[in-house]
């Protein structure tokens, strides 16, 4: 090292941030703040100067092979090398999923430092796990979950598996919109990938943990079941739905996210939940819940009628 030359702590931290920050020079974006970091990249709030709106820029880590290979300015960015980068793949997947519950992608490409990026809608709101711990009513939780399952079912209908569903990847916006984020591990169902074990422990289906090549929608069903369990809802019906969604053998789970969604909807409207074998008492109780208002009215009418009849008998006995 050069004699007498040394870096102080403040300079070191400044240089670390300087080197790590995506190079957006000459692009339409201006970095505002670091929002979060994941396994393969970081997410920044940025300003799209052309359209004058805030966006989320997801940028590949410098250390990822595709980025590191392209990061040497002596050789210049090499788009061909980053074309296959997972962030770009994620953007390509998102581009085919136009749905109000799936975060839309605006742009993707390569930054001047050679790193792949994807530009997405910047969602202002809270993550589902934050909301749950902040105290959300039971019906709100179920309503949010139902919309998540619906979005995932839509993705499945387009042949896309998410494969990293968890509360931290669900964002609830300021106006109640529910968005499924982070499609970085998503893959097309009809394109099996052998030997890839990726996902989040605790939410990964057993076959995903085993890096099975033929993952299908039931892997996401398992994760949805775990998400539902994390919402800390009570009741035998919810427990039965969770149990069915998270069975070890995928043949025993719901066949699709839509089936799971239907069962949750059935519970919300006091219909029969398919995951639960119902005895006469349970059926009666559900009947009571479903027609609670009508039963109250009938009961009130009957009570009133009895009262009236008693009063009438009393009057008649008094007259006689």
């Amino acid at each position: 090292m050069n004699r007498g030359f040394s870096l102080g702590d403040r300079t070191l931290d400044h240089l670390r941030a300087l080197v790590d920050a995506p190079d957006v020079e000459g692009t339409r974006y201006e970095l505002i703040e670091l929002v979060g970091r994941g396994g393969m990249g970081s997410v920044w709030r940025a300003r799209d100067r052309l359209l004058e709106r805030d966006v989320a820029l997801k940028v590949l880590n410098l250390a990822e092979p595709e980025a590191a290979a392209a990061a040497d300015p002596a050789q210049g960015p090499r788009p061909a090398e980053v074309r296959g980068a997972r962030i770009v793949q994620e953007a390509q997947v998102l581009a085919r999923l136009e749905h109000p519950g799936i975060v839309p992608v605006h742009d993707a490409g390569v930054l001047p430092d050679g790193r792949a990026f994807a530009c997405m809608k910047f969602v202002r709101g809270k993550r589902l796990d934050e909301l749950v711990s902040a105290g959300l009513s039971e019906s709100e939780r179920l309503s949010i979950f139902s919309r998540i399952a619906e979005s995932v079912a839509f993705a499945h209908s387009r042949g896309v598996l998410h494969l990293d569903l968890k509360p931290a990847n669900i964002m609830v916006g300021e106006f109640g919109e529910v968005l499924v984020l982070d499609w970085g591990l998503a893959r097309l169902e009809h394109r099996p990938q052998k030997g890839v074990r990726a996902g989040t422990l605790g939410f990964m289906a057993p076959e995903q943990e085993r890096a099975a090549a033929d993952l299908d929608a039931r892997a996401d069903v398992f994760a949805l079941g775990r998400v539902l369990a994390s919402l800390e809802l009570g009741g035998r019906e919810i427990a039965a739905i969770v149990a069915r969604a998270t069975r070890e053998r995928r043949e025993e789970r719901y066949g699709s996210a839509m089936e799971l969604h239907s069962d949750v909807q059935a519970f919300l409207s006091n219909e029969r939940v398919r995951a639960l074998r119902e005895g006469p008492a349970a059926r009666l109780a559900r009947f009571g819940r479903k027609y609670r208002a009508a039963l109250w009215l009938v009961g009130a009418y009957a009570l009133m009628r009895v009262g009236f009849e008693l009063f009438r008998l009393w009057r008649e006995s008094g007259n006689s």
Partner: protein
Amino acid sequence: MLQDGERDMSGPGRETAGDHAFPQTRHSVFERVRSADEALRRLGWEALAQSYWKPVYKLLRMRWKADPELAEDWTQGFFAHALEQGTFERFDPAQARLRTYLRLCLDGFVANQRAFQGRAKRGGAARVLSLDFEAAEGELAASTPPATEDLEAYFQREWMRSLFELALADLRQELEQAGKGQEYLLFARCDLEGAESGRRPSYGELAQEFGITLGQVTSRLHALRAKLRARLLARLRETCADEDEFRAEARAILGGVEP
């Protein structure tokens, strides 16, 4: 003045003739330390010594409470011992990260030195490297001593510091050789002195100071930062055993710093 058998670690371009630092791709030091060619093996050893001597010296001072003279002797002795005994050649990336392995080796070395009064007498250790202990001592004086339980993190941070210093030295050397020493001064003024003092000059002030336009300040700083990024990654890659370690170390170095 260097003595026989002593290697100067004070600059990146002084490794050997023909080993021009950048931008050519460097091979991993592990390819070198395991090479059958003795000259290549020595080059690998030098690269590791260059990256790690400061963290080693500082750890000796902090953890083992060695006085400066003893820490100098042990630092020299540790790297000399590693060269003689092929310590780096035995490193197995499947078992641990290099940094951890090196620290464990250092612990063993110090324990042996203490047990056998290994340091025959003060100043008696073979001086195989020319190292700027004065600068390392200055850095120690300027920093807060780490808590005992934070020594692992301390070692990592010092290694990180060393890596950035080497990358900066690479950058400076490249610019000076290209007759662009002024550009390095511009970078140093903005991103080194300015960052340390907590008051980074505005681009307008820099333009005035260096007699260039605002646009030139912007584009030059941008290019220099990109070069530094490339130099840093090249230095890091050089001291990692494989791609997995490179990625993990890069995350550790770059991740978690708020801009």
